[in-house]
């Protein structure tokens, strides 16, 4: 067989050769040899853990399916950017924007947008509209997707290491607990960045490309930083909590159950409590169309209610509103403190659980 042969049969023969390797023959049988080559930098160790975590997670068929559809919401919001920028350029497109006015929350934060659409001066509220679109992107589709993606990836990340006693394998190497933890977290963050940060930045870039001039960049320069901030708010407390659940058990399914239970129970508690409050306040049979939309919106959006903090989804949302400039920090300080407390408590639990097998 020659190397430059191109016939189909020859290629098949060449490919079949390695499979006929006898089982007792070594692949690279050189005996034991000392090693004196150059080593990779020490800080890369966590990358190895991340790489393995990403590869192992990708073996999940469910995750692959989710990732396939993860960018679909970005297309929807991309249409939003497109329509807004077209309306800014061509007055006839402004008619299309009118129905969207009803979708805006009845909040003073959005009065400026309503006014600019009515007056036809769209340039003024570009920043607010882009920020609102991006916040909505983070807040609704990607937050739900985040819960599902983390629910698939995180449960086995530490629980399987506990079950297979892989800790001894990790920590008998020059690896610190912080590197181990960071490596595990980074494998979660990699997927979350793909479903949230990267499409949000792509949306921003799309907005820049659709806008009439590059002067838009000076008006919206802060949005990429807000996207990164919102990503951090979305990723850090949630991934810490998910890994914390994973470290508490040897059974991945218990960790998955705890993860979904926190979100679903929190959501229903919030909706039930706030609906009861609304009923107490008045009969919704007499609500106008706008009031009905506002009521539906309130199920997702955040009201000033003490029940908000029972729902992790709404607590996250409050802080993300502040990140995108739709709330003052004083209004979300409690939510931010709750997220910080969850992060800190999860981190302490993780350190304790990771250290536990070593202490025995």
């Amino acid at each position, binding site marked *: 067989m020659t190397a430059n042969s191109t016939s189909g049969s020859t290629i098949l023969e060449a490919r079949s050769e390695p499979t006929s*390797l006898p*089982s*007792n*023959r*070594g*692949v*690279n*049988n*050189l*005996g*034991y*040899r*000392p*090693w004196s*080559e*150059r*080593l*990779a*930098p*020490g800080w*890369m*160790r966590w990358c*190895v*853990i991340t790489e*393995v975590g990403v590869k*192992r997670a990708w*073996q999940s068929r469910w995750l692959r399916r989710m990732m396939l559809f993860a960018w679909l919401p970005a297309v929807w919001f991309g249409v939003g950017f497109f329509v807004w920028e077209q309306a800014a350029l061509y007055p006839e497109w402004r008619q299309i924007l009118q129905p969207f006015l009803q979708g805006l929350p009845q909040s003073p934060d959005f009065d400026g947008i309503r006014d600019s659409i009515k007056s036809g001066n769209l340039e003024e509220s570009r920043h607010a509209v882009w920020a609102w679109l991006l916040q909505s992107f983070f807040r609704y589709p990607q937050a739900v997707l985040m819960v599902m993606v983390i629910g698939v990836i995180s449960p*086995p990340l530490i629980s*399987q*290491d506990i*079950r*297979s*006693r*892989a*800790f*001894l*394998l*990790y*920590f*008998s*190497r*020059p*690896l*610190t607990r912080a590197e181990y933890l960071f490596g595990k977290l980074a494998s979660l963050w990699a997927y979350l960045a793909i479903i949230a940060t990267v499409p949000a930045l792509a949306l921003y870039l799309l907005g820049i490309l659709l806008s009439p001039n590059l002067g838009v960049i000076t008006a919206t320069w802060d949005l990429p930083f807000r996207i990164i901030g919102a990503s951090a708010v979305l990723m850090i407390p949630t991934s810490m909590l998910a890994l914390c659940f994973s470290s508490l058990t040897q059974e991945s399914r218990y960790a998955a159950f705890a993860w979904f239970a926190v979100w679903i129970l929190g959501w229903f508690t919030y909706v039930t409590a706030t609906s009861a409050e609304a009923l107490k306040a008045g009969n919704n049979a007499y609500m106008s169309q706008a009031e009905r939309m506002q009521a539906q919106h309130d199920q997702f959006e955040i009201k000033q209610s003490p029940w908000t903090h029972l729902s992790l989804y709404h607590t996250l949302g409050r802080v993300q509103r502040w990140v995108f400039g739709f709330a003052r920090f004083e209004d979300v300080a409690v939510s931010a403190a709750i997220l910080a407390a969850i992060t800190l408590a999860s981190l302490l639990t993780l350190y304790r659980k990771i250290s536990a097998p*070593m*202490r025995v």
Partner: protein
Amino acid sequence: MSPLIDLIEITKDYGRFRALDNVSLQINSGITGLLGPNGAGKTTLIKVLLGLVRTTRGSGRLLQYKLGRQNREIRAHVGYMPEDDCYLHGMTGVDCVQFVAQLSRFPAVEALRRAHEILDFCGLAQERYRTVETYSTGMRQKLRFAQAIVHDPPVLILDEPTSGLDPEERQVMLNRIRVLARDHGKAVLLCTHILPDVQSISDAVVILARGKVQVADSLAELNRPTMPSLEVRLLGVADRFVEAIRARGIDIEVRTTGGLLLKGEPDQLAPEVWKAANTLGVAVRSMTPSRNSLEEIFLNAVRGASQ
């Protein structure tokens, strides 16, 4: 030459339980057998050496690195094969070895090449492409050994490396350890319950019991009997031979196992044995200077600790 491992009065308490009690120890290159009954403190000692647990008191050094202060450097220079089954779920054998090589800072491609090289050395053939969960006990043992040596560490800590292996594989594993120590200058700390393994390949022995070092010496020194003597085995009845030896003024003892124990310097006794055998026409099956058995040494050490 300074010892590779030097421990000075190491004490480790787990609450009220004292796992290691004032352990002072020097371990040199070659193979050192670490023996002890269950709960003697062997695993704790290994964890102390790896910096996985903090000592309550005492200090120590492994190579030029201080215990407790330079743990990362120590772990970079130590290959540890744990007794417990530990693996990475869902990964193939070659992936596992490549992964631990990368944790020891091998670049990815070199880690893969080295993983194959080491798996060949350890006798894991095409099984390396199967996930670890499907491995037999022996295969997992070989995999753990491969993971311990993949980064070419100068010091190896092997916890029960031959448990779960069939007799043939056990011999092959011991040979691998011997090759690493003899041909590649590795210092090996061999922690095991199988005394013949230690007897066959170790240069020195440390016996721990109740957290204390009961015995620490070279195997040659430990095997040397307190009274020099010669063990002789004959073919057939030995009555006439015993009489003949006694007639030469040599103290001889007939053992229940059928052997004869001649007390005195082996070099001086051997010619007398040959003379008597030649005169009486007796066939000598074996003649060896007697030595203390490791089992005896171990039992004495453990009994001494419990008294």
